[in-house]
């Protein structure tokens, strides 16, 4: 009753050569591998697995990147503002083959690669670099005496205002 891709009027070209099998021959017990292949296509620039509608998977991938662009803009508002209307395109190009490590780290990695030298975006990056130790590989750690401040943010009044902890917290 639902989801018959063959009967769908839009996007009829269900092609793709990443799948190991011809269509219709799906062995049991390979759900993990097939899920991984789909996630790789959506996040890492891998080919769309065999049999999926490439157009629709592409639309889903772009929607996902756009959503990430919005989330990173909330975590790095000055970095995003620095790019103005071009922010979604700038982020989406950078992130197209980079799976998310959470908005804080994604924005941090992008900020380091863009390396703003002056203005609010540079100040935002400098403030983060001063407050947290981030090796580019694992979750940022608050530096020294600031760690106590960071802990207070977790449970304190800033929760009510809704912003800071949500923005700064490293995503697991």
């Amino acid at each position: 009753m639902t989801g018959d891709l063959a009967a769908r009027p839009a996007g009829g070209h269900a092609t793709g050569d990443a799948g190991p099998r011809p269509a219709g021959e799906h062995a049991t017990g390979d759900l993990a591998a097939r899920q991984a292949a789909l996630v790789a296509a959506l996040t890492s620039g891998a080919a769309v697995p065999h049999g999926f509608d490439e157009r629709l998977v592409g639309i889903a991938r772009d929607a996902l990147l756009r959503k990430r662009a919005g989330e990173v803009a909330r975590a790095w508002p000055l970095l995003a503002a620095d790019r103005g209307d071009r922010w979604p395109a700038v982020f989406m190009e950078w992130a197209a083959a980079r799976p998310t490590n959470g908005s804080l780290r994604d924005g941090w990695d992008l900020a380091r690669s863009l390396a703003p030298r002056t203005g609010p975006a540079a100040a935002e990056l400098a403030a983060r670099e001063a407050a947290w130790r981030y090796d580019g590989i694992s979750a940022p750690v608050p530096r020294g005496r600031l760690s106590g401040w960071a802990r207070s943010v977790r449970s304190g009044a800033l929760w009510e205002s809704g912003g800071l902890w949500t923005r700064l917290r490293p995503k697991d």
Partner: protein
Amino acid sequence: MTPYGVGIGWRPEIAGFVAELPGLRFVEVVAESVHADAPVPPGLAALRDRDVAVIPHGVRLSLGGAEPVDPDRVDHLAAVASLLDAPLVSEHIAFVRAGGVEAGHLLPLPRSREAVDAVVANVARTQAALAVPIALEPIAAVFDWPDDELSEAEFLTEILERTDALLLLDIANVYANARNRGTDPLALLDALPLDRIAYCHVAGGAEAGGVYHDTHTHPVPEPVLDLVSALCARCRPPALLLERDGAYPAADTLRAELDAIAAASGYPAVT
């Protein structure tokens, strides 16, 4: 579930608005945003003091993942439910990571026996840690897997029967999927076990690139409200909840959306 009527997804950005709703009896909070070992966020604590039920809504368990669900994530969900004295929790029939990579979004499952088995096993692992029932939410999917063996209703019904879980039916997802697949949303309603609904989600969306996206950042469209009425004519769910996740409109607009859901379902306005 207790007939709570109309509720709203609690988000820090609209905590002030939610706190002022006089008739409110339930909200939902994203489970992963609550710290299990810290005090209840003040806005939620104030609602609990008013006897407003708070339902933790998980988004990152990955119940549909082929791998066993992460025990730490399950424990967190159970701890948040306990912290909030929640009457139930909810999660999605979806997967969000695979092969160690985060998708960053809820992804659809193939409607296959193998996927049913994976969901059932993960729901059982989750239920073992929970002191309250879990409601499972079917997602909105922009694409489907190429080799579905079961219809959507068969897929969902089998999962619910085998897990004894409740159904969190997202009416906006029903609308989005039917519109994108060219199927009849009423036929799906007629084929689902509506008496298992714990509560419903209602949300807005928009079309882009020829596809309707369930954005939670646009107004609730009229056809979604019509579906709410159609559902309630068949079997009125105990509760319906407005989900808004960004581009928050003025309070009057949010109030009007809550009132429209109340009108469509026949529940009293909470505003």
